[in-house]
């Protein structure tokens, strides 16, 4: 369970996240939608304690991220592709992260296998294609076998087989009772993957509803999304 309460983040004079409140419940995939620059990544960084909020707070299972005892065993996160030293092998990268949370080497090999990277585990990760890089990022998120997953644009750069893999993986994770929070700008992918969506625009909450309800009043989820975020684009024009 992820809770955001009045999360607010300002970069200079720009309000990136504006009094954002929502809950992400376990047992289902929750999509996080919004146009480019709407504050999705910033929100995720605020939840993970990487950015400090100007107001409000976020909690994971009732606790602030920084108070978690074994963060990787409670929250698995994918924030950006290629967030590792290019000279390190995939296995060393995962082994380094695993050590910080007392996770054994066996688990490193396990997640490499789950991500389909067992054959390239000893290669320098700097040479990985974007698709392999995403898989390594997801392997890192799975390291601690966490009950909460937070993934920023996980399907970016994946081929159809990779997209199918991540869709199945996330649904399986949710069916196991985990909390799965996934951002994407690919609405069609979200319509297939998520049961619930949080939609933001200009850092503000625009919708927080089951996919079926949101798409219900419109021809498709995409239409519903464009209608919602269209309002926020007008707001932007007024503000400018």
């Amino acid at each position, binding site marked *: 369970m992820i809770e955001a309460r009045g999360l607010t983040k300002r970069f200079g004079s720009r309000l990136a996240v504006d009094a954002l409140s929502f809950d992400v419940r376990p047992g289902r995939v929750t999509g996080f939608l919004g146009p480019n620059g709407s504050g999705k990544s910033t929100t995720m*960084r605020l939840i*993970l*304690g*990487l*950015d*400090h909020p100007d107001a409000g707070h976020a909690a994971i299972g009732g606790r602030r*991220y*920084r108070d*978690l*005892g*074994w*963060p*990787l*065993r*409670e*929250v698995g*996160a994918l*924030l*950006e592709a*290629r*967030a*590792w*030293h*290019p*000279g*390190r*092998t995939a296995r*060393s*990268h995962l*082994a*380094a*992260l695993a*050590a*910080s*949370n*007392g996770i054994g080497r066996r*688990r490193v090999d396990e997640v490499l296998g789950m991500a389909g990277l067992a054959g390239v585990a000893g290669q320098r990760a700097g040479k990985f294609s974007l698709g392999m890089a995403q898989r390594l990022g997801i392997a*890192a998120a799975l390291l*601690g*076998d*966490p*009950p909460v997953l937070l993934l920023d644009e996980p399907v970016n750069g994946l081929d159809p087989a990779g997209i199918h893999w991540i869709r199945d993986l996330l649904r399986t994770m949710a069916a*196991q*009772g*985990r909390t799965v929070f996934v951002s994407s700008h690919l609405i069609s992918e979200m319509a297939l993957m998520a049961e619930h969506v949080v939609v933001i625009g200009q850092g503000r909450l625009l919708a927080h509803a089951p996919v079926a309800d949101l798409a219900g009043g419109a021809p498709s989820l995409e239409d519903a999304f464009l209608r919602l975020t269209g309002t926020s684009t007008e707001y932007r024009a007024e503000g400018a």
Partner: protein
Amino acid sequence: MTMAATHAGPGERAGHYRYRHVARTEWVKLRSLRSTWWTLGITVCGATAMAVVIGLNTRNAGGDLTNNALAGVVPGLLLTGVLGVLMMTGEYTSGMIRATLAAVPRRGLVLAAKAAVFGIVALAAGEAAAFISFVAGGAALRHDIAAPALTQPGVLRSVLLAGASFSLVGLLGLGLGAIVRHTAAAIAVLVGGVYLAAQFVGAMAAGVAGYMPVLIIANSLTTTKPENCSPRSALCPHFLSPWAGLGMLCLYAAVVLGIGAWLLARRDA
């Protein structure tokens, strides 16, 4: 949550990551990069080569032969200094810092672990560089010049402190990396602060020149006897004693690392 139960049961979930976990992470990170071993290897070989060249060109036994054999220390410091910078800025360049801080949200612990792991590795490499240089420099001397021995007054001390200075400049680099966050800028500050500032300060204010890191290392740490001339002479600065010099360098590293830790905790990652 059947899968979750197999890997992290309730018993395992209790507790908290500790300093030793974070230190292990930093050790895996440091040792898994080839550049670490190349840089440290070049540091040792470069210092040794310099000692041999100076030894071969020594014409008489006048002067401080130990200091001569350790002449490769000052230029070699740049390598451990840069390695220290990269240990921090490399994470910002790649974005790894966000994975690191998500795994270990108590950020002070991250920098403390980096400092301990890198400090020890750089100390080991630095002592190797100092002792090998000392032996090689002595062996390269002409037969009619007696090589200095570790049993002579001040010799063991100066070799040991020469090795320690690699580690201390490395830690200075690490702290600067945490403050500046960009590789090129942090290296510029390191080179400016350690090497160039000494030139300007030495020329403008001889009284404080002895406090410049590079002059501490060259004139206090790696000598058997600090060279001092008349305190009245404006051109010849007063140098710190070896132990005072060591304390001064430790203080610099501690202050820079402290500021780095404070900024790391305060800033957005």
